């Protein structure tokens, strides 16, 4: 099995190289046969990569411990579903998985565009093959997932998958992120193709709009799932920590978000052509750079992937992309410039433009903060890190600015907006925002950011509602439809616009969730059975401590009765587990805290079993009361819903 898989990978590398050469020959000589053969070699590469992935999966399923990867990430006792997810649990496997996703995308792109974009496609295929080639080089020579095990005895069992990763969310979070990260290769390839072939009008932008939106959605959902997993599994009580690995996924999402906004301008007005080009190039660059950051170990992160020789290779690839992109943009700059002008500051166009500046600024701030340890070390010799306080301080106001723009933008007219329409459109939403600010201030909230966020979320919600309301009223009058009919028809007539508004509503919900952070409470106690503690109005009593031996771990279970003003709220059962407790080597036994939480719209009561002194039966318990967290997840669902509406295929055809 190892040799079979490795052979598939080397064959793919050879064919991938051939594809690049063939596409190059076609571009040079114009003989269509080169193109057709190249298309087929490329599809063969995709097929072989899929076969290689299936081979590794088969090895994982059959527990073929001759393969180093299988022995390191699974054991006989690993549940089948996690044998499957072990495919992306380690370095080399995740690279193969990356390649697998890319190959599926490439195959879809080729099939989808077989009769379209004949000027762009050779370059698209060439670019995608170069990216494929890079990853194939990696899995062939640097981190081969089929490498045989390096022991001189026969392994009876593997090491098994980390219990923290044995969670359903962990099964979908990495693939989602990959769908996003890898997906940006396609818009990137079209951008490079547009530059190479000098087809710089709105055609390439239109052909990748769906791709970009889908990719953007996958990346966003991937990030959210990561947060959800951290919150529900890791037990530090939060969903975002500004860790370098998180930042690495957030940065391309930010520039990607800017891109999906600004391409609207290019589609409608053929403006911002240079800017869009740069945005998508940067987005892809950030995807690869993020992978470099997380795989090279140059920034310290709690995620700490294996540090390996992959770092320099990725860095080289980043430099290559950067050099090619800069050269192409500079040499095509005259063709790229559109010559159209902005007509007014108060217009839809300029709203989009400011939105872009703000998104890019956040991305810059995040990049700067993430890279600061490295930069400061290079300059002063001391590594200076900046933690969550820095990122929060910087991004909260910029984020609020963005929220404001998302409320203003939709009500601005294209080209220019008159003063009368400004007053007419904005006086009620502004008033609603101010009233809401007053209400929460009367309720006792004094800190500036929460008050501003409440005001802004109210403002944005009312401007978006106004948009919906106006659309419905017009249709009712014009076509004599019922409100519901009008709503439905209006959305289906202009999916991307109304889908976009729904996404904005999702973002508003998330901001509501973020406000909660300002009111969180947490405390730690040492408790024995019968003790009672109090936090944020809750009385929490430790009523029992049980022990239980289960199939692959030993568990202490604390039972906490939670009451509020004498009324029972819930009973929480956080656990302290020792995995592999029968292992004679204590170093291999792995403690794990299984948290327990009770969630409502208002707040979550979140309990963590910190530790236990078995002799004294004294345990340490951490209780957190986290406000409004559910709204973050709700926002995620709404975002998903809105994007799906925007993505839904038109009946008129693609």
């Amino acid at each position, binding site marked *: 099995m190892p040799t079979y898989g490795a052979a598939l990978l080397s064959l793919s590398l050879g064919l991938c190289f051939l594809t690049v050469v063939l596409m190059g020959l076609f571009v040079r000589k114009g003989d269509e046969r080169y193109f057709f053969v190249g298309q087929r070699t490329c599809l063969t590469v995709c097929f072989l990569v899929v076969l290689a992935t299936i081979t590794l999966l088969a090895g994982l399923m059959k527990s073929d411990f001759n393969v180093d990867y299988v022995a390191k990430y699974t054991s006989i006792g690993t549940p089948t579903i996690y044998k499957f997810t072990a495919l992306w649990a380690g370095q080399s496997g995740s690279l193969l998985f990356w390649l697998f996703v890319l190959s599926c995308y490439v195959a879809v792109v080729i099939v989808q565009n077989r009769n379209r974009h004949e000027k762009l496609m050779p370059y698209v295929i060439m670019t995608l093959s170069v990216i494929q080639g890079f990853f194939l080089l990696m899995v062939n020579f640097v981190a081969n997932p089929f490498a045989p095990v390096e*022991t001189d005895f026969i392994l009876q069992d593997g*090491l098994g998958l980390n219990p923290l990763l044995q969670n359903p969310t962990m099964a979908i979070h990495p693939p989602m992120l990959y769908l996003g990260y890898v997906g940006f290769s396609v818009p990137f390839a079209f951008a490079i193709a547009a530059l190479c072939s000098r087809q710089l009008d709105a055609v390439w932008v239109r052909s990748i709009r769906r791709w970009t939106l889908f990719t953007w959605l996958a990346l966003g959902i991937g990030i959210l799932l990561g947060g959800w997993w951290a919150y529900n599994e890791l037990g530090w009580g939060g969903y975002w920590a500004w860790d370098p690995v998180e930042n690495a996924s957030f940065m391309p999402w930010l520039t990607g978000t800017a891109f999906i906004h600004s391409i609207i301008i290019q589609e409608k007005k053929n403006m911002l052509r240079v800017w869009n080009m740069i945005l998508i190039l940067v987005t892809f660059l950030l995807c690869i750079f993020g992978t470099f950051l997380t795989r090279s170990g140059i920034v310290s992160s709690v995620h700490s992937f294996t540090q390996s020789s992959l770092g320099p290779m990725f860095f080289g690839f980043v430099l290559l992309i950067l050099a090619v992109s800069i050269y192409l943009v500079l040499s095509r700059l005259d063709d790229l410039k559109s010559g159209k002008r902005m007509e007014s500051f108060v217009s839809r166009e300029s709203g989009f433009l400011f939105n872009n500046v703000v998104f890019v600024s956040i991305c810059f*701030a995040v990049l700067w903060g993430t890279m600061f340890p490295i930069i400061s070390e290079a300059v002063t010799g001391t590594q*200076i890190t900046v*933690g969550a306080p820095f990122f929060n301080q910087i991004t909260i106001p910029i984020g609020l600015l963005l929220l404001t723009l998302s409320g203003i933008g939709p009500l601005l007219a294209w080209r220019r907006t008159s003063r009368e329409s400004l007053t007419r459109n904005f006086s009620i939403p502004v008033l609603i925002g101010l009233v809401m600010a007053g209400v929460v201030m009367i309720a006792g909230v004094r800190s500036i950011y929460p008050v501003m966020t409440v005001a802004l979320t109210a403002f944005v919600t009312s401007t978006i509602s106004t948009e919906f309301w106006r659309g419905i009223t017009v249709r009712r009058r014009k076509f004599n439809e019922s409100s519901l009919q009008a709503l439905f028809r209006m959305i289906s007539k202009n999916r991307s616009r109304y889908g976009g508004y729904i996404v904005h509503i999702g973002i508003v919900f998330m901001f509501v969730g973020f406000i909660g952070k300002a009111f969180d409470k947490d405390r730690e106690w*040492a408790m024995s059975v019968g003790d009672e503690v109090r936090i944020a109005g809750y009385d929490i009593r430790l009523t029992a401590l049980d022990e239980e031996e289960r199939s692959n771990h030993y568990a202490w279970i604390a039972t906490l009765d939670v009451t509020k003003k004498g009324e029972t709220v819930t009973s929480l059962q956080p656990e302290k587990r020792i995995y592999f407790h029968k292992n004679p080597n204590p170093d291999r036994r792995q403690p794990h805290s299984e948290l327990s939480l009770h969630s409502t719209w208002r707040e979550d009561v979140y309990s963590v079993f910190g*530790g236990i002194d078995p002799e004294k039966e004294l345990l340490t318990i951490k209780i957190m009361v986290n406000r409004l967290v559910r709204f973050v997840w709700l926002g995620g669902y709404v975002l998903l819903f809105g994007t799906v509406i925007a993505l839904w295929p038109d009946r008129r055809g693609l």
Partner: protein
Amino acid sequence: MNKKFAAVIISVALLMMVWVGLGFEGNELPYVTIQDLTTKETVKPGKRFRLGGNVKEGSIIRSETDPLALSFVLLQEEQQLPVSYHKIVPDMFKDGSEVIVEGIFNGERFYADNLMTKCASRYEGDLRKSDTSI
């Protein structure tokens, strides 16, 4: 109009950069070695540092009276630093584990308010040391 526009955009971008630059004030956390801490750094009261190292074998002492209070010795090759911590420790915290601590230094003892274990989020075990083999 385009020139005016560019000017506005550039000034907004510059403003953002200044804002980001200002954010470092008071938020920087130097990542130092034990040696730096005792020789190079001027230890101002309340100034926070971040250090990485290993927990010295057998050095973890839990308080008899307060189960949350704990002290251990942080090891960086030859250098040692006593550390106090008063919170629940992460699951992977034990003798020999690689940790990162953040907190203040009073000249003798490091008072950590944040302790992270650098557990590989994936197993990177050495199969030769595995006890599952025959």
